[in-house]
């Protein structure tokens, strides 16, 4: 497949179409629901699975090497800042994992334009934004051109 969409769960909202990095989640014109138009260009990145508000998208491993009967399910909760996984093996064994995804509120990153405007001296220097402070070593390291020389056999 790799991703596929359950007919009874999908409401055709198109979140998966918006997010898919491979542009392979499309809306079927007859059923008005999403489906994977090009399974052999699916990376199984789960971007659509995580984005689906209806949990309507799942993955069946690539048919050319993945036997049936497995499942890797995910729940990504932005407000809680966690991602939860449930892995079921073909033989029924299960494993569970939970990880943090972010330590700050969504939308809280400052625009670079919200920092004090840089001076002409900073523009002329080798420093990048927020340096040298963000380096946490006092100053930006540098080499002199005399330290570079051509290789000789």
């Amino acid at each position, binding site marked *: 497949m*790799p991703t596929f969409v359950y007919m009874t769960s999908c409401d055709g909202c198109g979140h998966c179409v918006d*997010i*898919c*990095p491979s542009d392979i989640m*499309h809306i079927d014109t007859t059923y008005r629901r999403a489906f994977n138009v090009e399974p*052999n*260009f*699916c*990376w*199984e*990145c*789960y*971007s659509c699975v995580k984005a689906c508000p209806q949990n309507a998208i799942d993955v069946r*491993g*690539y*048919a*050319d090497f993945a*036997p*049936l009967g497995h499942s*890797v399910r*995910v729940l*990504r909760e932005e407000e809680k800042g966690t*991602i939860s996984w449930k*892995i*079921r*093996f*073909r*033989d029924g*064994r299960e*494993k569970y*994992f939970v*990880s*943090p*995804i*972010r*330590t700050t509120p969504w939308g*809280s*990153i400052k*625009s*670079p*334009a919200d920092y004090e*405007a840089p001076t002409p001296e900073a523009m002329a220097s*080798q420093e*990048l*934004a*927020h*340096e*040298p402070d*963000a*380096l*946490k070593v006092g100053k*930006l*390291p*540098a*080499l*002199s051109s005399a330290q*570079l*020389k*051509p*290789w000789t056999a």
Partner: protein
Amino acid sequence: MMARKKTVLVDCDILVVGGGMAGCGATYESRYWGRDLKIVCVEKANIERSGAVAQGLYAINCYMGMQWSENQPEDHVRYARNDLMGLVREDLGYDIARHVDSTVHKFEEWGLPIMRNPETGRYQREGKWQIMIHGESYKPIVAEAARKAASDIYNRIMVTHLLMDKTKSNRVAGAVGFNVRTGDFHVFRAKAVIVCAGGASHIFKPRAVGEGMGRTWYAPWSSASAYALPILAGAKMTQMENRIVLTRFKDGYGPVGAYFLHLKTYTENAYGEEYESKWYEHTKQMVGDYVDRHPVPTCLRNHALLEEVKAGRGPIRMVTTKAFQDPHKETVGWENFLGMTISQAVVWASQNIDPKHTNPELTTSEPYVMGSHATCSGAWASGPSDYAPSEYQWGYNRMMTVDGLFGAGDTIGGTAHKFSSGSFTEGRIAGKAAVSYVNDLGKELPQVSEAEYEDLKKIVYKPLDNYCVGRNEIVAGTVSPSYILPIHGLQRLEKIMDEYVGGISAHYMTNQPLLTRGLELLTMLKEDLHHLGAEDLHQLQRSWELHHRVLASEAVTRHTMYRTETRWPGYYYRADHPKLDDQNWHCFTLSRYDRHSDKWELDKAPVYHIVD
């Protein structure tokens, strides 16, 4: 059909092509230094989940740790030089290494969960250069910063060509592309362009050719735009022969870094024997004392694995059963996949492989061409003004040999081991330099010719016309005498590259006659690209991805032919020149393509080393 497509004109100061890690860095930094500039980022997917980090990452592989005196930038230069068998742009690599810590510190401030060592309070090291993160949302976090910085983000626009200044032939003036949803033709007129597009998967035939062909190690949407866009604009390219082959867990291509470095797992052959030391003398005969360097270069470790498999003692396995008895290590092992290569968990679950009880198989991937991992293909760029030697410096930092054209990430050659954090950092370097360029332009603004973009518009939509006309000739199905579909062209490309330019079926081996024949077949494929048929806008995107892949593949083939030595055994072999040859080839290869004459010129450039 083409005539119905609307043309949308967008004027901006800085155009960032591609919104992956490098593109987000370029967008962010451009805004910091260029408060009043119009900064536009254009992306063929959605920057929330685009580029190689779309799926997430479980480690940041380039962090010095200067605040704790863990490493200095020159240490990283030595490491990258050693891993690439002596050949990296040390000026560019040092530049990334000296800035990368500030990037990572901002990532943490923005909300990226970076693991800490409970004993030292420092970032949890996976290896000397790698720190461990919970990076499922790495890309959404970085994308948020870019969205805050940009004047506009254009998602779902596939950039097909750069535009050149009509008054100065070697100056860039913007880019064109089409909206994959609406079909509108977009013309971006820009004072400076920063190419931050992706490297190349799917130019060599992958190991899985059925449904699983999308499970390549590098993302299937990395379609070589990083190279095709600059090549078509006449930019010089370097080290395009330096493709990379990855040793990874079989079929899922799950990463091995954390397994080797943090979990301390190790490899053995099918009979439980250590094998790398067996191939020491053999390898030494090919590459001399490069085999004695530490750590052993990635390509040479591949080489030992390949030789052991050829000797009939495969499969090679990763011994996980010991480490995984520790529940913490078991968790790290699984979360490592779930954070960046979920498919490996799918493969193991489907085949009942629990690494606590079974040692999983490893394999070597098909070759990829990229500029940010343990390899350094890409455009030839100007170095930093405070120390780059004069031969490496002709203008602004990270400007290519075309005026106003900058690059970062997979696009820029010679700078291996930048990974996600280094790519973002290189984007920042290019962003600041592009602001300088725009500030210095004064009244000499680039001029875009309407005739040029109108001509390109016809070319861009031709696959839709080809299909529309040709489709009427046949009853149904995919076989037409008048057009080929993008997937047909892609599979032909992969077969040519595999068989003639050193892919998996040839054991990564090639020679002059094979390369010559490969070029003949690539030439016919290039001609056939005029007959691509696209049923819809999605297939039109696939058509232009294929165009980009084919042009990059031609560069790879020509560079491979030019370098008459085997520099990186384990990545590829020139069977007619089976040894490393420092006397003649301790240098960079350079190429330049002239789109008017369809001719390539190849040349050498010297390698400058940092003292010691």
